């Protein structure tokens, strides 16, 4: 009897948690099938109407925006991971004066809110001639993705026993080969999880994207989404916006599902002895 009560209570709790986390997303999907006045009626199971999706994909710059976001996010992740693994090797495995200061500096840099660096960064980007180009976004996102990836990689690389590197050196491995043939495969699970987080951050970023781009063709998805407008200035096309949100979220969910197994296996495997 007591066990039954416990099971029931636990199940109820689970339902509440699932409802709490899933419902907003469910409501977005539901709204994306509706348009006009229907948006304001409460209807949990509307007919599936893909008009909003068709409109989005055929008109305007939405596809272009998705492509831009993908280019920016993939570039940020690739560059961050290349820089992170090489600097993590230096910071985690080599001894040099000022190593602690460099690490503290990297951490410190990531503590500033975006808005603080915005104006200075804007000037830098104008000076570099990157204004209104995707390069400006790659550059600015890396300011925030690198400290995080470098820190995580450094702590992971430190856990790899030094004897492994000695063995590789006895085998004639150069430093470059060591990083890519020994450390890179061993750090793959950590790379997958940090890469994923960097990807999500770049994919969803709004403030820099709004500030550093001007024309529709270089906008990324979050800005493009925010600037979707209706037929008149008094109409906010919720249905279309929701459809766009769903399309934008799906790649992230897929990525998490693909890498999830990798991340979990990375946490449990990797022992040397």
């Amino acid at each position, binding site marked *: 009897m007591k066990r039954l009560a416990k099971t029931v209570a636990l199940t109820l709790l689970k339902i509440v948690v699932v409802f709490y986390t899933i419902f907003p997303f469910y409501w977005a999907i539901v709204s994306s099938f509706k348009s006009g006045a229907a948006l304001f009626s409460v209807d949990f199971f509307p007919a599936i109407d893909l008009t909003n999706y068709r409109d989005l994909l055929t008109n305007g710059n939405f596809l272009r925006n998705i492509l831009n976001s993908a280019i920016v996010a993939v570039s940020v992740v690739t560059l961050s991971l290349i820089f992170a693994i090489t600097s993590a090797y230096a910071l985690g495995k080599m001894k040099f004066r000022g190593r602690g200061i460099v690490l503290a500096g990297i951490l410190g840099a990531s503590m500033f809110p975006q808005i603080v660096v915005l104006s200075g960064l804007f000037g830098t980007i104008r000076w570099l001639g990157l204004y209104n180009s995707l390069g400006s976004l790659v550059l600015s996102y890396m300011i925030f993705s690198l400290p995080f990836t470098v820190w995580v990689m450094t702590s992971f690389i430190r856990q790899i*026993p030094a*004897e*492994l590197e*000695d*063995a*590789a*050196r*006895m*085998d*004639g*491995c150069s430093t470059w*080969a060591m990083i890519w043939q*020994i450390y890179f*495969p*061993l750090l793959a699970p950590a790379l997958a999880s940090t890469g994923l987080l960097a990807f999500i951050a770049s994919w969803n970023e709004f403030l820099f994207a709004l500030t550093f781009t001007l024309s529709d063709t270089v906008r990324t998805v979050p800005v493009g989404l925010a600037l979707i407008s209706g037929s008149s200035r008094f109409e906010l096309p919720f249905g279309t916006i929701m459809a766009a949100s769903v399309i934008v979220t799906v790649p992230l969910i897929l990525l998490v599902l693909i890498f999830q197994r990798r991340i979990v296996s990375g946490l449990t*495997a*990797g*022992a*040397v*002895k």
Partner: protein
Amino acid sequence: MADLSLSNVRKAFGALNVLHGIDLKIEDGEFVVFVGPSGCGKSTLLRAIAGLEDISGGDIRIGGEIVNHVPPAERQIAMVFQSYALYPHMDVYTNMAFGLKFAKIPKDEIDRRVRKAASILKLDAVLDRKPGALSGGQRQRVAIGRAIVRQPKAFLFDEPLSNLDAALRVNTRIEIAKLHRELGATMIYVTHDQVEAMTLADKIVVLNAGRIEQVGTPLDLYHAPANLFVAGFIGSPAMNLMEARVSAVADGNMKLSVGEQHISLPYSGAPVAPGATVTVGIRPEHWIPGDGPSVKIEGTVDLVEHLGETSIVYLRLADGQMITVRYPGDIFCTAGDRFVADAPAAAVHLFDAAGQAMLGRRSGPAYGILGQEFRAR
């Protein structure tokens, strides 16, 4: 295959000197064991030979060639690490082939060498497994296989057995000894375990605080320790070391007092002034009464341990010094009994105040006499 020589090799980490001028010659095909307490510099010396540590001074020669600045992979030596240091993401085959790939050895030659090593080490069945799926003993063999395929001039082992359990350790020790006989390669082996050192070595190098204390065959070190450190380090239970005062030296005899007791030894070494402090050393297993001149020490039994094949008696002398006596078989005495320990004079070691051996003993005679004593019983 090649000989190795170290001359005045020094190593300092900042202001801390770890090796103070090591001179050592290792012959081609010799099995040399570096042994010493932790922190004595034995691993550092091995890593210096491997090229993993730069030396601060002196020369390392492999096959007559100075290799001080040659990178590890080009010294043509192979190393087996304590933690095995296998590449966890590669299967056994790739682990063994990894170094050969960098040495630009043709693929079919790599394949031939890896398969040959695998068959020597009985690893054929697990070539496609990752290290994580192997037992401790198998991992150890893969680590050795990775060294064999390189066909090195010398093998270096850094405490290779310390991660194995006791039974496996004995087996692997025997396998390493066999491997040395089959390959005839020069091997340098670091350990803190004196049983490994005694059983494997052609030559033992005893290190302490960055200096070589003594170099010799296992029996040399056992029977003729050059100083107090080696005397106390080699042998288990450790040698009894008693403080004594020289009372007189005359007619080839030295009279000594240990506490209130007087003993007398044949002595023909350098002159010693009466009143000098010396250390008398007698191994626990050498307290075997014999016919010749002997040394007798009396004490009270503190504790007796019966191990079946031997009995160990802990004696307390009148002045508080402790003596361990190991008798073959059973001995019937209990705590509180008076006990006279009796050892042949030939088994006695004598060290001066600086800790250096005074009797210039060789392993042969002492061993011979004691061997006869055992046979006579």
